[in-house]
């Protein structure tokens, strides 16, 4: 492979690269909306419950458990960046 071929390969973006980049962007953008809303809802309901009845602050552990269950889906979207070529 002479210099011209190498320069060509180093400076061009193939259609495959461009499409995979667009795909990754769409996955990240669409994939983080759901878990963000879900975790926000959990936080809001927890704070509303504590505001109504301060004894409800013992449920903080349970709320964090639900946050971690939801966060699985966000991390699956993030991990698929490294899987899509």
């Amino acid at each position, binding site marked *: 492979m002479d210099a011209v071929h190498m320069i060509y390969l180093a400076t061009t973006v193939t259609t495959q690269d461009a499409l995979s980049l667009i795909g990754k962007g769409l996955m990240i953008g669409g994939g983080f909306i759901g878990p963000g809303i879900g975790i926000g809802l959990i936080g809001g309901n927890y704070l509303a419950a504590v505001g109504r009845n301060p004894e409800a602050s013992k449920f903080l552990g349970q709320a*964090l*458990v639900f946050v*971690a*269950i939801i*966060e*699985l889906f966000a*991390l*699956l979207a*993030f*991990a698929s960046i490294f899987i899509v070529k």
Partner: protein
Amino acid sequence: MGPILTNLVVNAFDDKKKGRKYVPYFVTLFFFILVNNWLGLIPGVGEAIQVNGLPLLRPFTGDLDGTLAMGVITMAVVYISSIRESGSIRNYLRHFFVGSPANPLYLVIGLLEMFTDMTRVFSLSLRLFLNVAIGEIVIAVFSYLGHVLAPATAVPFTLLEFFVGALQAYIFCILSIMYLAIAVNHAHHNLTEEDVPVTIGTELETIE
């Protein structure tokens, strides 16, 4: 941490004596996952020290192979315990189906429950692996962004990963305990058609 975890495990079961049998496994699992997660945050562990292009030290839970093995063994414990508590495999499968499996609605619900059971292996192991591996990536990204000030920019995220590591160990154990408790508690009570609340097919009462 010991009495807290022991009480957590034992209180999940209806029969406290049965619950005591499973305490050693879950306490071991919790401390194993916790220590492995935290050891991954030590500055030398990761891509920093490389031998032949591959990192020398990696956390066990930072690999999908490790967490998949832990998930498979945990669900094997759940299945084998619930089969043993129900008596036979037929009894164990019977408790997925409310009433009789010949009814198509209960058949579909039962099959869906069995499928959910099988996806629990992947959900447990993927949750742990992704949290630890992506935490490492985040710390690496923020160390790179602060070129000379890398020790300062990486500190907030290392603290976050301490918290996330402990939380994920707790969640792995809590979810496995819940799955085990659900399977074992129902072992002696087969749900029959009378236990299902009647919601369709009743005559509507007219309001006068």
